[in-house]
């Protein structure tokens, strides 16, 4: 099921399937590890930027940008590699 990063809750996991942002922002996100197929796990998503675990590091993504990251939701609370 396709979801936006901002709609996932703490503990949820997902795989990046696409980014619907401007060219520069998209490339930046890709370079920071949000590339096709990357698995992310939500650490915090209440107010302010969303914090996710990605490739073993924590990344904070502003809400505006996070709302443009499309994910395929994997199981809730799935262990993220």
């Amino acid at each position, binding site marked *: 099921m396709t979801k936006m990063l901002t709609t996932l809750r703490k503990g949820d996991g997902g795989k990046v399937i696409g980014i619907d942002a401007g060219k520069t922002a*998209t490339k*930046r996100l890709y370079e920071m590890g949000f590339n096709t*197929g990357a698995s992310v796990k939500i650490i915090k998503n209440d107010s*302010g930027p969303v914090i996710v675990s*990605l490739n073993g*590091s*924590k990344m*904070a993504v502003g809400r505006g940008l996070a709302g443009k990251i499309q994910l395929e939701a994997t199981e809730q609370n799935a*262990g993220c590699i």
Partner: protein
Amino acid sequence: MDKKTIALVGNPNSGKTTFFNMLTGANQYVGNWPGVTVEKKVGTFTHNRIEYDVVDLPGCYSLGAFSEDELVARDYILSDDADVIVNVIDASNIERNLYLTTQLLEMGKKVVIALNMVDEAKRRDISFDLDALSRALGAPVVPTVASKEIGKDALIEAAIAAMDEDKEPVNPVAYTDAVEHHIEHLHALLEERALPYPADWTAIKIIEGDADIAQKLHDMRVDEDVLQGVDNFRRYHGSDSFELDVVDSRYAFAHRVAEQAVVRPEQEVVTLSDKVDRVFTNKYLGIPVFALIMLVVFQLTFAVGQDLLGGVAVEIIEGLGGGIEAFLELIHAPAWFIAFMNDGAVNGVGAVIEFVPLIAVLYLLLGLLEDSGYMARAAYVWDDLMRRFGLQGKAFISMIIGFGCTVPGIMSTRTMDNRKDRMITLLITPFISCGAKLPIYLVFIAAFFPSYGGLVLFLLYAFGIFVALVMAKVFNQTMFRGESSYFIMEMPPYRIPTVKNVLRNMWDNVSGFIKKAGTIIFLVITLLWVLAVLPTSVEPYSEFSLLGRIGAFLAPIFRPAGFGTWQEAVALFAGIPAKEAVVGTLGMLYAGQYLEEGMILVDAIRQHFTPLTALSYMTMVLLYTPCAATLAIVAKETKSARWPVFMALYTFAIGWLVAVIVYQVGSLFIG
């Protein structure tokens, strides 16, 4: 034999600075990059009685053309000045770090991998097959813990061995068929054109749509058919997703390497860092925790820097001044020279030196915050609020650093990958009250608001932030309208600050401050002194002196703000080279001698100001034109003479306007 050079490349937060400090110790200096005036750090170390240079490249996630830092790093690597590249990698975070590595391999450079912070990885239950890692990358891998100096010798030996090897590095990344096809095609076009860059790398950059490389090819006047080919590629494939495909291919390689060489636990270990973050980034607690931390920083700065150590500094200066005076009298130096040494050199420069302990403590504490990883959290908790003013969280880091000194505050905008955010932050940072303005407030507070000192100071600082945010909003909706802004930031794990890093950082800043005292401030004070005592036919320090006449010419500008005497005008202009000179100049002109503190100066201030004009004067000082060092760094960072001129004028206008409002509105109430 030429001295060999090692260049350090790595992600931000990979421990690269610690690594640089481990390799070079105290043997460091700051230079400029060839061609650009961005500062670079160079150090040396000696191994087997041979000295080597180490160049610390700016930390970056990629070697594209995103930020100034990336361009500087990439241009240096391409210049072939380094004999080997040491790529510092955060062991806990291997994929994203290898993303940078793939780009070094694409460039065909000799690379040695320092797998850093393996201790932290071990705590997170991550283990490595070093041989597999090395094989997959085609480069030697050395595990290190830079903060504990583990792996130093092994790394140095591997780096030196790699320098002499003449094995051709291969690019291990497998791109998509379409990309491979275009690389081949562009390679054929680019080879044997005597380009200063590898043909394959250049081809990849063109496929990525890299604007910088296209510009450079153009500037190099390569053959017309090459430019034509590049242009055609951009025309026909500009809207294809090749650049994202290339990123995906690099990451696919990184993932494959990680699969072969890294063993990670099923479930990520919850670290202490994660627990601390639950409080520090909490929706409700984040900002109060931040406020508390900053309060402690400022309280400690004053308690230790001023109350505990400040007196010692004053005594040293006074003792030194007395000694110099006695010596000059002993050798019968001319009276004017003694007067100059006293008024100008000793008191003028001394006035600045007195603040060294304060600045040192502030930098020590800010360095601790930075090295511990807290700054990223501060940026995080403020992002939401900053966004309402058209800024992003990272701007807040620059503002915090600006409390210490505007110059490093402005330099820290380099990490922003977005021009709009960077320019706006750079333009508003001068409103954040810096350490050098503090003495000015302290004198006025002592004269008029002795019982409300803390409150007045707090209000001034808060007002500075307020004006900065309002101006951010204004810039956002005028000059930089429509440009996009986004926030993406790594939140590194909390780490125990390294003593070496923190002290090094403090020393770099403090020595810069002392140097400033010895040069710019000394020159300003000398010039003012000369102008104040000439021509010799009139009374020194009077309105008939040259300085008095200049001041009288300028004074009417400030009359609507309530402080229209020539002395007050001169003091403000003396503050443009360096803010420290404001109080000193007022003292020299009002008390007839150069004074920095003490009751004579406070009395003189009390005679010439009212509480209201004191307030409007302090507001002016808070907001008006930043010091020359700030304007110089703005020129450097923006590579333009227009921005610093714009900054000087617009801040002056805002300072003046607000001071006038304070005075005029205040007058209505007082009558």
